[in-house]
């Protein structure tokens, strides 16, 4: 008798989310199966990788990931255009890290100007991320959400401590919203419930269960993502059917393995190759766990992950 591969059918489906406007708008999510299980059901959209840029020069990034952007990263507009035009980015994620009170403490007005300039320079979708300072993000994200009104951006991240104002701003200006909780599936669900109870459309939400780098708790992120996706598909849990985001670059390019010099650790091999691999590996693991949106830094790591996606879709 011929072998018939067993197939799962699921009762639930991930919402599809469209970001950006015009013919460069991108849709991700929408599948009714586990990642890349196209043989079991429908996987209408490719996962989206956004190139991370920031409002201030990336002096805090390791040298090997600064290098590809050395000529452009002094200015977020040039940087964004470079990602779009030279690296064929499908989306850009602008992190307003310079607004953090412990960094340049840039004002919401400064952030508005940066966002407007970047939006004017590119036609691919823009993801706008705060500095992860709960209080400051409130004022900054309200201002930039308004400045980007109707550009159908993704705004983030709304957390338990500040979701009300940020969600209201995203709602008023027709954006999508990232809801982040700290590696706790039950709190992730609770935050989605609280945000939708404000009247925010559940199909405009993206869940960030909090990322971690390979070797630094990746298995926790993986497990939470996997369980969220199983709740969405097998239990048809409407509060858990949002696409998921992995904020990969920020976590990966902080760990020792992406920075330690080859001279100090010759058996670890080339620092540059190692860093790129670390980012690509982390990102790929999260794709398998269920992430549909990845924020990444190194162009070669992005290219490697895009290739994996090509082979799996």
């Amino acid at each position, binding site marked *: 008798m011929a072998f018939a591969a067993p197939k799962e059918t699921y009762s639930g489906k991930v919402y599809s989310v469209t970001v950006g406007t015009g013919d460069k708008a991108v849709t991700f999510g929408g599948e009714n199966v586990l990642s890349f299980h196209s043989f079991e059901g429908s996987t209408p959209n490719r996962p989206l990788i956004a190139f991370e840029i920031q409002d201030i020069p990336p002096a805090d990034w390791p040298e090997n990931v600064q290098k590809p952007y050395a000529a452009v990263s002094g200015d977020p507009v040039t940087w964004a255009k470079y990602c779009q035009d030279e690296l064929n980015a499908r989306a850009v994620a602008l992190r307003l890290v310079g607004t953090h009170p412990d960094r340049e403490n840039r004002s919401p007005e400064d952030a508005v100007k940066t966002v407007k300039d970047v939006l004017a320079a590119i036609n691919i979708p823009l993801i706008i991320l705060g500095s992860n300072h709960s209080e400051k993000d409130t004022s900054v994200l309200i201002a930039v959400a308004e400045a980007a009104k109707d550009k159908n951006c993704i705004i983030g991240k709304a957390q338990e401590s500040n979701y009300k104002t940020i969600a209201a701003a995203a709602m008023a200006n027709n954006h999508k919203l990232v809801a982040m909780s700290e590696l706790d599936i*039950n709190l992730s669900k*609770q935050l989605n*419930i609280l945000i939708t*109870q404000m009247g925010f459309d559940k199909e405009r939400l993206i869940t960030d269960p909090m990322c971690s780098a390979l070797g630094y708790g990746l298995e926790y992120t993986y497990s939470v993502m996997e369980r969220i996706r199983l709740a969405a598909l097998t*239990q048809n*849990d409407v509060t*858990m059917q949002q696409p998921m985001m992995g904020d990969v670059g920020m976590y990966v390019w902080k760990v020792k393995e992406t920075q330690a010099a080859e001279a100090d650790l010759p058996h670890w091999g080339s620092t540059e190759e190692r860093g790129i691999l670390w980012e690509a590996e982390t990102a790929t693991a999260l794709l398998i766990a269920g992430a549909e949106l990845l924020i990444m830094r190194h162009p070669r790591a992005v290219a490697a992950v895009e290739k994996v996606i090509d082979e799996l879709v």
Partner: protein
Amino acid sequence: MLIIGEKLSIIAKRVREAMMNKDKGPIQEIATRQWKEGSGMIDANIGPAEDGGEDLMQWMVTTIQEVVPLPICLDTTNAKALEAGLKVHNNEWGRPLINSTSNDPERFPILELAAKYNSQVIGLTVGKGGLPADAEERCAIAAEIMARAMEYGVPLEDIYLDPLVLQIATSQDHATKVIDAIKMFQEMNDPAMKTVVGLSNISNGCPKHIRPILNKYYFLMLMNAGLTSAIADSHEMAEALNERQLFNDVLAGKEIGDPEKMKVIKKTIEVIMGDNLYAHSYLEM
């Protein structure tokens, strides 16, 4: 069903202050209230009680038994305090219960005390390492505790196996594992092993208004699984016992007269059974 009143715990501020000041009033008031609400035993949790534990436990046992004709569940990790309490315990009101021994070698001497004072003892199915992964691991630990109890001369009829209830807010999958463990524990001896749970831990970390709901319905599910006793809020448990028929009707898929209550019971069963992912607002969805 034996309800062991949980309220005399050092964790509660009012109780802690009364313990520190040796103020009998609040202790006796709370003990009396729990007795009237249906507790058949009173838990006296004095914590690790490293300093003055012996005096404190003796004071607690005599203070409670002065006003309430019930046995005491002596709840501390301090073996000396346990022994001091057992010495003064009035067995006229029933035999005491020690809370607890486990599979941690440091807790083995507690079995000696149980044998020496003819006390019953709780066997918490945890080892020295981490938490038990599932019902099977709880049973494996239970078997070790039972074997050791026999070595020490404690009859198995005097052991209450405790599967360790974990918080639904962080360890939802353990809710059904504990129910399974309660069923399996009973099979481990004939007559069936007695069982006990620290019930309220199920709702630890949950919003205040849903704690009694989770406590009550989880209790009824455990009761259906054959649970012998629970360290719990006796007021909540009295309510639970009143609602038992209603609860079992919903569990059996029947319609009940109160649609709001039916919704609450159904949703709570769903999160306990793991059919719906727990969130603090689960009742509102």
